[in-house]
């Protein structure tokens, strides 16, 4: 495996032209995610956090600034399979079985499905969906669908993992369960992770650093370190130190 160098955004600007008004979605956004670190971006709706992620994925182009994934342009990294991505609402193709959904990135970057069958199976098992390989998304629960999305994001053995509110549609209990799972899976892969979320405790539980954004214009106001040792146990959610940090992030978020 090549040495991952992480994600780097510097001086990123993005403005959208709407009906008669312009929205400054991102102003001078800079974020460095060192290799094998976990960074969470948190902010209110419309603060541009999803736009930042879409720019890092190469789905949008920035007006100014530079984005590097492992030192390469986003689209180059994407085409070589170094990026993995999980969107909100799982974005599974409903006519494809679990296995065929997990195979989508392989198909796109042009890897043989046959020679990667073991890898696909391993990812499905890693997220605990053994036995559901041939099920259709419509037959799965919301939590299971998100697991498929995670397995799909990991199937190319990416060195960089992007997640846009992957558990946004789940209820609180399931969400915490999935947070614990995600930590376990992520630690196994050793990839650089960037998570966009609007859940404070999700961000703190998972990340090494939490970048807090404000809206109008969308910008990063503070990056807060999370000191808790890994692997983090679900008990952490009720730890006073955890609550103190939650309060601190909340005060930056709303301040």
């Amino acid at each position, binding site marked *: 495996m090549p040495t991952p160098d992480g994600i780097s955004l510097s001086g990123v600007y993005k403005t959208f032209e709407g*009906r008669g008004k312009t929205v400054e979605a991102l102003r001078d956004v800079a974020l460095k995610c060192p290799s094998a670190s976990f960074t969470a971006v948190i902010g209110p709706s419309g603060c541009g956090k999803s736009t930042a992620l*879409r720019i890092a*994925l*190469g*789905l949008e182009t920035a007006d100014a600034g530079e984005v590097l994934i492992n030192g390469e342009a986003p*689209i180059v990294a*994407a*085409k070589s*399979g170094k*990026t993995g*991505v999980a*969107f*909100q*609402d799982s*974005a599974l*193709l*409903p*006519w*494809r079985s679990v296995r065929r959904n997990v195979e*989508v*990135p392989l*198909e*796109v*970057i042009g890897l043989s499905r046959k020679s990667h069958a073991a890898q696909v199976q391993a990812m499905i098992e890693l997220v605990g969906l053994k036995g559901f390989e041939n099920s*259709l*998304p*419509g*037959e799965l629960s919301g939590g299971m669908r998100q697991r498929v999305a995670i397995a799909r994001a990991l199937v*190319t053995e990416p060195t960089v993992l*992007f997640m846009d509110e992957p558990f946004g549609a789940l209820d609180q209990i399931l969400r915490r369960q999935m947070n614990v799972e995600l930590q376990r899976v992520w630690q196994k892969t050793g990839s650089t992770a960037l998570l966009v979320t609007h859940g404070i405790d999700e961000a703190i539980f998972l990340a090494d650093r939490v970048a807090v954004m404000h809206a109008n214009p969308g910008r990063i106001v503070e990056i807060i370190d999370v000191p808790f040792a890994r692997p983090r146990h679900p008990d952490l959610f009720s730890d006073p130190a955890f609550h103190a940090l939650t309060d601190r992030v909340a005060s930056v978020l709303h301040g």
Partner: protein
Amino acid sequence: MARVPTGLRNFAILLLIWEIAGRMDLVASGALPGFSEILIRLWEDRADYPRHIWATLYASGVGFLIGNAIALIAGVAFAMSPTLLRIFRGVNIAVFALPPIAIAPILVLTLSDMAPRIVLAALAVYFVTMTATVIGISQSDNRASDLVKAYGGSRWRILWLVQLRSALPTITTGFQIAAPNAVLGAILAEFGGGGRWGLGTYLLGSLGRGEPDRLWGIGLIATAIAGLGYLFFALISRRLLGATRAVTLNTATPLGDAVSASPFKRVLMLMGIVSLPFLLWWAFIVLTGVPAMIAKTPFGVIDYLLFAKTAPVAQEKLLQALSETLPITFAGMAAGIGFAFLLAISTRLFPNAIRAFMPVALVTQTMPLVALTPLLVLIFGRGTSLTLWVTISVTFFPAFVTLAQGIALVPRSAQDLPRAYGASAWQEMRIVTIPASLPYLFAATRLTVPRALLGVMIAEWLATGRGLGNLLNQSRGYLDFGMIWTVAFVSVLLSVVLYQLVVAIERKVLRRLGMQTAE
């Protein structure tokens, strides 16, 4: 945004191309006159128009009122009683699928004066409004109904306070689509028989005289009337609701599916569903009191086709006609839907071109396209290519609108996923767009099956002298009443069977793929 100017500019360019092509006789040696020539001819013919326009307006207007009144009552009844909806399933599908031209001669035989036109216009609006009413009522907010119920409101009170009110937008959309349908129904009835006045009569009368500028003028007026009808209800609904509603309402949705019941009950229900249309047919004949020589009951048709002395001849004629009509129906439909599909899935490849084309496609939805067949006769002559082009033109546009709007519903995240891995436009299309459009392909096919058959029959009736349409027209001349009823029955049956076939295949395929039927 520069939306309106762009549309105006495109329109102006279109008119200019039309004018140049027309003035220079570029299309089929003068079949398409210049736009100004058409307007000049319209002015010269101005004395003829009022009575023709009035006749068509009268028939479609009265038909619109009657058809919608029945549709509203039926829609409310069906929404309140699922059993009733199920029993009437056969009737509803038959009304949806029947090619109006096929039953026009029957109506002319059994009814007099304007009645055939009014009935055909009413039939053309019934299904759309009925479906809109049922869908509108059944989609109303349950919680609001529960609230009224919690305060002791009766079923009628809930219907009035909550359900009809919340169904209003859907019903108005139904009216919008029904208005051009009524004009089409009236014109087709005018093609189908008798009368001195009416735009359909005028079109037919002018077809033989080789005057393209007059034919185009009539076509323009007919299109304008249908379009104004649509616009009228569009404006009302906008004023009423303060919002624009979707232009299309897929009215080919199978309503009232059988719910699980005992096998005995299901067989009984199926028998009821199938026999009710025949009962209505029989009742219609009894009520109109037309002599048995002219009006054939279901038994009369069976007798004519199977047991009468002339039965072998009749069978032979019918089979010959079917062997001419069916292949071209399938070919035209496949071509129309195929073009529509290719164009719709390339939305992602050429977004701007498709965006420019969409308004055109939407406008055609309000045009009485089949009624313009005489214009196509000018361009394509009276051969097979005419039939093919009529069929393609009546299937392509609705199929395209259904498919394009369906593809627009594919969630952004599903499309983003392959792109996040650097997928090419072609990969994105293969992995996401094409499979996602499958339900809409079926919906489009459902919607266009009856139109394809109608298009073929109109072309055959008016121009090519082949197939079912021609057999029907000929039998009118020979006063072969048995054949008139038989062809009408066979055409309706054919349309219903093809429709049901599409529905059955759709269910099977989509269930296997774990996909939902598209509304």
